């Protein structure tokens, strides 16, 4: 399955619909979250016919800009609103991926979003399946969307 396309389509739709903003896949290919300068990662776990996680990795200014656009407010620093908004962004992108999987007969459950932030952290997953990372360009800089997925059931 072309997970890259699902991520791009889903992320674009969310930005256009909820933030009234355009976002496009970045020029950089093969960016790895481990080498990317991020201050915050929001993620949603997946279980069922596929297991894995969808994560958004972003630097602080992008997280503040996304939250500000969603809520129509200006923010100076990371706060509870930013955690909540970035968790919901991950939830919506994961929901989009889930819808595609459901259409292929792979029903998955989504976890409640989690958010990690700080100067130095690492996110690991025990999933052994595919790993797709898409870099997106915004006016304020770049963020990554990562999907790790392992099919545990055969599609219906």
């Amino acid at each position, binding site marked *: 399955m072309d997970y890259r396309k699902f991520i791009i389509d889903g992320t674009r739709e*969310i930005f256009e*619909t909820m933030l009234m903003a355009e976002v496009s896949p970045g020029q950089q290919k093969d960016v790895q979250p481990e080498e990317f300068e991020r201050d915050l990662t929001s993620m949603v776990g997946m279980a069922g016919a596929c297991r894995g996680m969808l994560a958004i990795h972003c630097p602080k200014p992008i997280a503040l800009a996304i939250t500000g656009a969603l809520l129509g407010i200006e923010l100076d620093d990371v706060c509870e609103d930013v955690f909540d908004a970035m968790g*919901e962004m991950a939830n*919506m992108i994961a929901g989009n991926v889930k819808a595609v999987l459901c259409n292929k007969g792979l*029903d998955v*459950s989504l976890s409640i979003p989690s958010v990690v932030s700080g100067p130095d952290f690492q996110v690991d997953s025990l999933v052994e399946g595919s790993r797709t990372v898409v870099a997106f360009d915004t006016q304020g800089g770049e963020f990554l969307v990562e999907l790790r997925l392992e099919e545990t059931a055969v599609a219906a």
Partner: protein
Amino acid sequence: MGKSVLIVDDSSTMRKIVARSLRQAGFDFETILEAADGQEALSVLDESRVDIILSDINMPNMNGVEFLREKADNPAIANIPVVMITTEAGSDILREALQLGAKGSIKKPFTPDQVQKTLGEYV
């Protein structure tokens, strides 16, 4: 008496977006109530008159499907229409919510137009 709506979602961001979308869609609710999960929603319904409920499915403590079951068991609130606002498009859990009496669903992300179209019938 003005109409009231209850928005149930564990994300405070989403509750604010839904409230804003209702205003943009032209709905003039006198009261907009909020709850962070199904359990909290039942408490709000115990104390307040609500004309329509917009509920997420995927929530901690008591999810949207469990909330619909509990609501159906209480004659005082069983007939209040519920519309699901969720990322769960086309999934088994959304089908279950519709079987339990949810009137329809709005898929996240959504526009005020989509909110208007889905809720117009009940408000």
